[in-house]
């Protein structure tokens, strides 16, 4: 538990260094990951449709 907390404080001190520049990087990374996650969900939706089409071809 203490190592977890020391890791977190390590990360926050890193983000605060260089005039908090790395916190901006963190914001950009979150933005990127969020959009990627959304694309991932859209991808899953398309997968389902593809499976549906394939199954229909098999049955017919």
């Amino acid at each position, binding site marked *: 538990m203490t190592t977890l907390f020391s890791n977190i404080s390590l990360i926050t001190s890193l983000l*605060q260094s260089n005039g908090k520049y790395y916190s901006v990087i963190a914001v950009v990374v979150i933005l990127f990951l969020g959009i990627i996650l959304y694309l991932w969900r859209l991808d899953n939706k398309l997968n389902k449709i593809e499976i549906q*089409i394939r199954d229909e071809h098999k049955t017919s």
Partner: protein
Amino acid sequence: MEMIKKDKWMYRSYWKILGVLLFIYVLIGGLGTPLKPGIYQLDAPTSAKPGEYVSIKVTGYNSTYAKAEKVEAWLKLDDGHYTSSLRNQVIDNERIIVNFLLPPASNKEDYVPLTLIMYNEIDGPTVLPDAISLSPVTAQSDTAAFTQWQDQINSTLTPKSGILFPYRNILHETIRNTFFHVALWLAMVIILIAGLYHAIAYLRTKNMRNDKLSAAYNTTAIVYGLLGLATGSIWARFTWGTWWTTDVKLNMAAIAMLIYLAYFILRSSINDFDKRARFSAAYSIFGFVALIPLIFVIPRMYDSLHPGNGGNPALGGEDLDNTLRMFFYPSIIAMILIGVWISSVFYRIKKVEEYILTSGDQ
């Protein structure tokens, strides 16, 4: 044949390419442009008496104290009352000790904050308000002593030229979040307006195409909104010192997001196409009508940490200068274009999904 296909592709996709190029421009410029020099930290007594000798150790940011020919420093009492430093001991580019002999009088009966102004020919002027506070004097307030304050700074202060972002205390480098966090919220509102437009269009025409478009725009907008909350939370942690505060703007934005999250629950809980389309169109009109006062009206009526409230506008004013605008407006456009792109993919998936469902029934 090949040529026609290519032309069509260009015709259909130029705005997507424009969005991506604009975002790359914002990433490179917004993360790469340096900040103007500023005063990062002070080692000084919290208060000083008039007539006292104070020495202040200044830590600069992006500063060039050692390289500059001459570093000047002033303490400002108010407009028309300045005192200049006696001599400075430069340690290196980032560190300098400035010494002042405070004039033996103050015109105030209470503690007054003095503003530190520094200037050198490379960095231009840098300012730190509340550098030190001047304690009140009661005995020695004669006008002769008072004239020892200079009525102006006897140097011309030319600002550092070039494309540089403004240096703001507390904000420091996080001023760049303007291009990501603030632009994201503005893009969200624009995309929600597109969703609202299609919701109204559905109610008027009963065309299922409008229903799917409305759902696509609203979904993308909510993803943007949730990302806006997450990025704002990170920004708050490193400027206000906490992930979340009970600030009006923050809580109202969270409520607005919850209202819109209910939109998806509504959509997923109704299976009948027409009913779902009607209900969700009506709900998204309600959601937008609730969002506007929650985000733009109520927070302005209360004091708030968040810029854009309590009488200080978020756009315009000193917070957004021309160098920030160079990247802020392109960032909004880029995020709108990318959002419309993602929405169009969402819409086409829904279209194919519906096509399969209806053709399977027959």
